[in-house]
């Protein structure tokens, strides 16, 4: 199966996307098209058992996902230096921050701080990611930015609800810009992969895949998790987690989605090998991504309920509501980035001394290794 797929797709190899990733892209686009088709059929059947509101939400989401994937694939396709991908994520961050701050009440005294946040910190974060200054882009916003925001608001001579205002702006910047910027930062990683068949050494070798594939895997898994969460909630959701925050998200949805996403992660890795993870590593990563994505949606729901808006999209009519679609990506991105980096970044040179969880797991689980 894996061979057939990669053989088929090797005929369609483009720029930054290797054949395995192209196979994944193909599978995703075909599945989304099928979902779109099903949604249209459901819409045309007035006598069906499905609630028309759910069908409408479903159709809206599927077309939003399709749009996201098409934009991402087109951007990644010939982007050798990843310049356009970083710019794309930067623009998404900018727009999400715009929605976030529009929804959050700020005072006159916050104006200049907001100017800095929008026009200095946001572009700077993406410039640093683009230049791959890891030691800077991990601290600029949480350390420098946070302190700057507090100081600048104090300088503006307005102490009313001071802590609350600082927290709002810091959180917006952290979620919409800092967290999301870890998705394109994946493209910078020099990753190793565990190869148990390697003679001598500790089994680490340089990963031969393309980082664009890892980014694509990440986005696919987040969206699959969102979709499964939606399905599980509708079909089996009995125990709502926090009814005042989100009336539909249930424990069944959270756990069911996490489990199913893990299975999807394993399947993607086994059939297409787009990531440097082992098959169980891929499953665990998908599990983490799913849990983080659900936490992201819940957090954004809580903020929205507090502000009394249903969707960021309806905040100002006619806008697409970018933040509604990327809240789960924002939460999952930094965790996925750091876990990947911690276990797999540049292992080859350090290989002889490595004694970590991943190596331990692999060397003690010979059953797992026969997969390859």
């Amino acid at each position, binding site marked *: 199966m894996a061979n057939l797929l990669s053989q088929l797709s090797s005929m369609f190899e483009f720029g930054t996307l290797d054949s395995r990733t192209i196979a994944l892209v193909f599978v995703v686009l075909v599945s989304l098209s099928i979902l779109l088709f099903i949604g249209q059929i459901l819409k045309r059947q007035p006598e069906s058992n499905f609630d028309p509101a759910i069908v409408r939400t479903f159709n809206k989401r599927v077309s939003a996902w399709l749009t996201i994937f098409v934009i991402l694939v087109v951007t990644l396709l010939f982007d050798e230096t990843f310049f356009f991908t970083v710019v794309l994520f930067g623009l998404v961050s*900018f727009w999400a921050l715009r929605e976030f701050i529009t929804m959050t009440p700020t005072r006159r005294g916050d104006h200049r701080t907001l100017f800095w946040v929008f026009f200095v910190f946001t572009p700077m974060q993406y410039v640093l990611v683009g230049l791959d200054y890891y030691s800077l882009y991990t601290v600029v916003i949480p350390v420098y930015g946070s302190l700057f925001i507090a100081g600048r608001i104090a300088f503006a001579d307005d102490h009313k609800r001071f802590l609350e205002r600082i927290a709002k702006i810091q959180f917006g910047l952290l979620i919409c810009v800092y967290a999301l910027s870890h998705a394109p930062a994946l493209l910078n990683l020099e990753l190793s992969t565990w190869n148990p068949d390697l003679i001598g050494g500790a089994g680490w070798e340089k990963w031969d895949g393309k980082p664009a594939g890892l980014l694509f895997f990440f986005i696919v898994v987040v969206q699959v998790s969102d979709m499964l969460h939606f399905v599980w909630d509708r079909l089996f959701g009995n125990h709502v987690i926090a009814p005042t925050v989100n009336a539909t998200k249930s424990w069944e949805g959270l756990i069911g989605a996490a489990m199913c996403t893990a299975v999807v992660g394993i399947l993607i890795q086994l059939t297409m090998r787009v990531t440097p993870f082992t098959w169980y590593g891929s499953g665990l990563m998908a599990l983490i991504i799913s849990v983080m994505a659900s936490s992201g949606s819940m957090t954004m729901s809580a903020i929205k309920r507090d502000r009394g808006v249903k969707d960021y999209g309806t905040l100002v*009519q006619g806008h697409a509501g970018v933040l509604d679609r990327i809240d789960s990506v924002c939460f999952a991105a930094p965790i996925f980035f750091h876990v990947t980096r911690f276990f797999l970044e540049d292992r080859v040179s350090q290989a002889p001394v490595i004694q970590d969880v991943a190596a331990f797991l692999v060397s003690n689980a010979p059953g797992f290794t026969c997969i390859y």
Partner: protein
Amino acid sequence: MKKLAVPFLATLAKIVSGATVRWIDCEPDDCQRIYFANHTSHLDALILWSSLPKKIRTQTRPVAAVDYWHSGPVRRYLASAFNLLLIDRKKIKVHNSPIDMMIREIGTTESLIVFPEGGRNPTGELREFKSGLYHLAKKRPDLELVPVFIDNVNRVMPKGEFLPVPLLSCISIGSPMWLESGENKNQFLERARHAVLQLKET
């Protein structure tokens, strides 16, 4: 030069303010209209003007104060580029009232954008309207008076700031109204003010 600068600035204002335009019980029309709106920011007139369809905005002129727009070369240039109708707030006299001047200037083709609160309002609450709108309606009963509510532009660029923050704003344009027969000045102004406030709720 102006041919390039005006569409450029209009587009820039649209991008910076992220303005959504809602026509509520009202359609864009090239008949003569007076758009009256709440006033909270310098950008109000520019954003409202640029959110009108192109055909209509070429014959729509914002009314503004000469003392502000003639201080400094940049403002002077902008005033002429956007074809502002400038009113001298200090020289208002009976024989040369700004209402007469407005009516003279618009002739039978142009429309106006006015801010009947008389100045920018930093608190964001809608103040009492000045009587100019009433006199306009009385002297030219054929003009359509269109209420407009401008939301969030005061956060994009508050009074006293010169750099904008790109938040999302919203322009709501309501259904036209006229001076009813037997309506006195205060009743009419209160009804006009209420029409703007109502757009905030919808």
